């Protein structure tokens, strides 16, 4: 082998390694994500005894269907609410929050962009300030309001305090401002009322931002934890995340890990499906609104 060939070969090798490098890094990243989830899945296929006798078997055991059936229809011994009930609650909360946010934000943005009225700035800044008041910093007094209104253990209580969204108002406002005003003027000349303009022209034009907002807010709603923890005390109103927490409370030996893990996987499923199916809208929505 001549010196030149050797150099070429070495260059070729570095090139191959260089080409593989991003793949290796990305697979490592994927492993970091998938590896813990695989163990959850594995745990949901074993019996309680197998898991308690650590280390649990690392494969997929034969009790998968049995465990998911128990999770879906019965729940655990220490928490008798089945996943189906909690799934319904989570779904109502997530859909209520996402559609509620979209509707009231669309209306508010419509008013702020297309009308001139004395309290316009005031309204805008009031909505803006809500950005600085997340639930976490006003836990007790918000709880008291809900309790005074008799909305503990109700869907309204779960949903209403969550449906204000400065982010959604900003996004829709931004989008409305990019629409040529001639369209509004023309609709008016053609005799349409402002609400007809909103329903038949503006709302259909806003489809893409609405879809983006829906994905983000559905996930936000589905993943609410602190708020339902505060205001749901009756098992029939537990959301999935609260249910998981209840299944895991108590001494380690009493925890039915296989059911808790099956429930955890089931709780991940709906929002993950939404993100995967609507990935494009989701990424556009995230990077458009939040920046």
């Amino acid at each position, binding site marked *: 082998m001549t010196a030149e060939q050797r150099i070429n070969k070495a260059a070729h090798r570095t090139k191959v390694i260089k080409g593989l490098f*991003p793949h290796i890094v990305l697979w490592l*990243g994927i492993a970091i994500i998938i590896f813990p989830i695989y163990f*959850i899945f594995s745990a949901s296929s074993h019996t309680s005894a197998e898991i308690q006798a650590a280390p649990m078997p690392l494969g997929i055991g034969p009790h998968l269907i049995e465990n998911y059936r128990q999770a879906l229809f019965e729940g655990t011994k220490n928490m008798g609410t089945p996943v189906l009930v909690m799934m319904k609650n989570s779904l109502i909360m997530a859909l209520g929050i996402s559609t509620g946010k979209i509707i009231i934000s669309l209306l508010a943005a419509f008013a702020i962009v297309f009308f001139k009225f004395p309290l316009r700035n005031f309204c805008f800044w009031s909505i803006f300030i809500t950005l600085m*008041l997340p639930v976490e910093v006003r836990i007790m*007094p918000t709880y008291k309001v809900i309790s005074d209104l008799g909305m503990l253990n109700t869907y309204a209580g779960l949903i209403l305090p969550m449906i204000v969204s400065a982010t959604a108002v900003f996004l829709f406002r*931004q989008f409305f401002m990019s629409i040529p005003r001639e369209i509004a003027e023309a609709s008016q000349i053609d005799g349409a009322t402002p609400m007809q303009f909103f329903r038949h022209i503006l709302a259909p034009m806003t489809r893409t931002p609405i879809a983006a907002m829906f994905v983000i807010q559905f*996930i936000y709603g589905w993943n609410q*934890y602190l708020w339902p923890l505060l205001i749901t005390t009756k098992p029939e109103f537990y959301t999935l995340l609260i249910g998981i927490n209840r299944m895991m409370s108590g001494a380690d030996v009493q925890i039915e890990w296989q059911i808790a893990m099956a429930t955890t996987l089931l709780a991940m499923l709906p929002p993950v499906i939404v993100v995967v199916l609507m990935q494009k809208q989701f990424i556009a929505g995230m990077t458009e609104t939040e920046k």
Partner: protein
Amino acid sequence: MAKQYEFKAPILPYLLVLPQMVIVFIFFFWPAAQAILQSFYLQDPFGGRMIFVGFQNYSKLLVDPDYWQSFRVSTAFALCITLSAMTISLFLAIQANKKIRFASFYKTMLVWPYAVSTLVAGVIWLFLFNPNVGVIAYVLKHTFHVDWQYLLNFNQAFFLLTMAASWKQLAYNFVFFLAGLQSVPATLVEAAEIDGAGAARRFWKIIFPLLSPTTFYLLVMNLVYGFFETFPIVHAITQGAPGKSTGILVYKVWRDGVINLDLGSSAAQSVILMLMVIVLTVFQFRFIERRVTY
């Protein structure tokens, strides 16, 4: 700019903003005002008398070692999460932004965990590291002979919380870094390459400066996440243990209010947290050119 066309209707716009404003006032402003008011009073937990005590609730907090511990651990927690989650995500985003095969597969695989809730992230890592049943805990104990008892060992507890919280945040950062990298003009990077700039130099001299708005935005968002949105992870994994040492600020507000029913102190803590959010938000809006100018 030409005058924008606007609808003329005296009452309609008020009806349109009404739902939003009603909820803003009932569930945001009123409770916030209540928190401020309550922070100046002592109240017995059973809804009884309120006694005005001035700044006493605040001054008690300022001399309470528990509160300072909570403050310190929250800050350390937020900083560690921000650093680890942002570094790893940026590194992954740079690789995924290269023109390689399967790039869109990689992107999907790294984006979907955005949908995983903070609580679920906590539960997953809790299970893996549970001293009795956890697979990783088993390896730590039997292969590496670590005395793994995170509920008794602050460092272990802190490590576990940070890992779970950072893991959850990877996808979020990845989405933004990737979007940021895609907006860096490829021609600029290529030009630098032709001029002989190595990969590291191209990154630090061209890509990183152009990425700084994204980085700055994520810095604020990660700190906000670390401080305010990690309640579910602490609630699931340590409940503040060992002792109260991992009880971050938000966890402490919740515990003092809901469990200990110390409403005055909880309210004072809420007000301090509110100030923190305001500072962070103002900071973010002042330094990032946001489109929310009126």
